[in-house]
């Protein structure tokens, strides 16, 4: 039976990298007595996969991992058991049964959305209104936003217009912030900071590595024409 688990990562846990988060959940499964299935062979490992790795330094309220179980308790009891096994900063939000033929979260992820807020001392010297106008001019007006993206081996030209699904200015605690919905997954993975880097360039400013605090809201599947829907919506609650 396939199960999708939704969790959040907050506070200091943003410093825990992806591989360590995986190890953390493997041990948590044992502590919570989840009847997870193991691969066969001499060194069996838990059947578990994550949707979209979260970079170090980023918090999230919409992370997903898929597991396979031999048997399971209800959603409510499983969420409670897992939360008893969590440390501060990790919370399990949902635990849902997937159809047996469901593809792994990792293979269907297409998009994720984020809010980027200013870290103290890095605030921008522009009003909310000025920023809204600038985003409009940078993102909404042009038909193409071609940028050069550095990859490990080469560089390629990509069109941000095709890969950024939403970009707007928010007001968070009286200060400007940015909301971004960007292409995510094994192909065309866009980091929200990359979009802001080019936006800053457009403003004639340099983006510092620490200007923003990044928070992920959710991870989606689907596409821009037919619509995106949350990975959490694909499973059903176990009663």
């Amino acid at each position, binding site marked *: 039976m396939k199960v999708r688990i939704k969790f959040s990562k907050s506070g200091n846990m943003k410093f*825990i990298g992806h591989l360590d988060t995986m190890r953390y959940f493997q041990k948590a499964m044992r502590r919570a007595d989840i009847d997870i299935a193991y691969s066969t062979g001499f060194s069996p490992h838990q059947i578990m996969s994550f949707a979209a790795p979260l970079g170090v330094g980023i918090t999230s309220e919409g992370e997903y991992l898929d597991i396979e179980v031999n048997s399971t308790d209800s959603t409510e009891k499983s969420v409670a058991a897992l939360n008893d*096994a969590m440390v*501060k900063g990790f919370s399990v939000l949902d635990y849902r049964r997937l159809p047996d033929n469901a593809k792994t979260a990792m293979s269907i992820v297409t998009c994720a959305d984020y809010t980027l807020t200013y870290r103290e001392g890095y605030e921008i010297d522009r009003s909310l209104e000025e920023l809204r106008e600038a985003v409009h001019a940078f993102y909404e007006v042009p038909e193409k936003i071609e940028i050069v993206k550095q990859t490990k081996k080469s560089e390629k030209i990509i069109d941000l217009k095709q890969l950024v699904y939403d970009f707007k200015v928010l007001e968070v605690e009286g200060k400007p912030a940015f909301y971004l919905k960007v292409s995510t997954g094994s192909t065309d993975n866009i980091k929200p900071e990359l979009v802001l880097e080019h936006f800053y360039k457009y403003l004639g400013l340099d983006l510092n590595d620490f200007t923003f605090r990044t928070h992920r809201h959710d991870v989606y599947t689907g596409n821009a024409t037919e619509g995106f829907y949350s990975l959490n919506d694909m499973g059903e609650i176990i009663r």
Partner: protein
Amino acid sequence: MSRPALSDEILLTIDQPARYIGGELNMVEKDPASADIRFAMCFPDVYEIGMSHLGIQILYDMFNRREDVYCERVYSPWPDLHKIMKEQHIPLFALESQQPVKNFDFLGITIQYEMCYTNILQILDLSQIPLHAEERGEDMPIVIGGGPCTYNPEPIAEFFDLFYIGEGEISYDALFALYKRCKRDGVKREDFLRRAAQIPGIYVPSMYEVTYGSDGCLKSFTPKYEDIPAKVEKQLVMDMDDAPYPSKPLVPFIKATQDRVVLEVQRGCIRGCRFCQAGMIYRPTREKNVEQLKKYAYEMLKSTGHEEISLSSLSTSDYSQLEELVNFLIDNFHDKGVNISLPSLRIDAFSLDVMGKVQDIKKSSLTFAPEAGSQRMRDVINKGLTKDIILEGAGQAFEGGWQKVKLYFMLGLPTETTEDMQAIAELANDIAVRYYEIPKEKRNGKCQITISTSFFVPKPFTPLQWATMCTADEYLGKAKVVNEAVKNQLNRKSIRYNWHEADVTVLEGVFARGDRRVAAAIERAYEKGALFDAWSEYFDNERWLEAFAETGVDISFYTLRPRELDELFPWDFIDAGVTKEFLQREWKRACDGVVTPNCRMNCSGCGARRYGGGVCFEGQN
């Protein structure tokens, strides 16, 4: 969750920020203000090493059971963070509260190996605590050292206010009670230390006067006051059943060296190998109750979620209930995906059977530690392993499907000859011959035999504490002898040979048997940038040689000088349980190549019987 002491800008710049944020599973959280005593427990090496240490987990659990104590942890910041903390004057902090160590009541440092000495100075330096105990003001933490290296604490004595000699479970309650009384009554630091020196196992270096003779040797070591004991007695747990053990050990986020449940089955070792300090200072051997171990195994696997459990002791094969315990672990946990690891197990029918059940034979290798190549040399060091036993064990293993063997030896042992060194290669060859005796169709290609040699460092409180060492060049010459001998073996293509660095060995030798005068060289080396000397990528021998030269400390005095049988050693003020008479007797037997039977075969009167328990009284209830 405590707000990190380090900013996002720092944490997101350095390697492995998870080393510095705390918040791990089973971390103890208390209100720091509610504790009468704040204790910072330090392992002076990188987090992944320090978090793997069982002793700290035991004391962390034991201290935090007390309501009036809050024990937190601190490890050595890696060089990347070290640089930032120095530049920005950020005081070193404890992981739990993220508050500066300098505001704590105690800074306890466990000292497991000599090459961490500069890391101790780093901890003090970054904590903004004066390096020398005598320069510390009333508001500074009491800096306390513990662990095996404190069996000769003299080279680092001036950096510590006090040392705890022996197993930590015993005297801390008395020390804490005294500290609370003194704090309440506003007693001065100096007076507290003087009173602490009267607690069994507590050594306060500043309470002793040391003089040296014209030959440079230690002449006298005397208490400064009448109420200070002349001998400091090592502390030992004699009731192994009621001793505290952490049922909820900390589980780090990043992969520690020891990423598993560690179940200590016994303390001490009956074998009496003459080079082994642990085998002497943890006497007498004390076993734990098997029913209690089963309970701990269950609780600890449950509370950590670890996928592996390891049995720990100096010689697990000598644990009398081993078979029962191992079968219990296999029956209860193996099909739940829990791996069972059994280090330091003698290779015999039982252990091969167990390993066959819990390991992948094709991938795993057998480990033998004959320590010396020839039988004569093994008799000198009292290593009971014979060539027949090794070939028998290896033979059984080969028949069972194993094909990888690791062999560990020491070079530079007393009375060693060229033939003894060559015998290392010959023994490896004999093992290979045994492998190729198996019919071709039944074996699985070639066998792989890996020889590793380290250079012997004489340690205090061992029978070989009188031995002289060699120069680094002489050590490398010995490795060359072995290397040549390997090349001359018939089965040389199945044998690989690695040897350790010689420069580090020489320094370890100085620190292991050094006196208070060595401290100046350690401090100078730290000033010159020495740090993480246990890590070969950071060890710089030139820097150390300069530090010794500049401070006038003669390395050869500590390593190459022959020691008289009645020489007063810097560590002789410690009563480690084994008597000097026993050690002298054993040293003479070593020189004559006479073996001494193990504790279960025959008592050799080492002195540990006076503790009134353990193997000395087995079967005598």
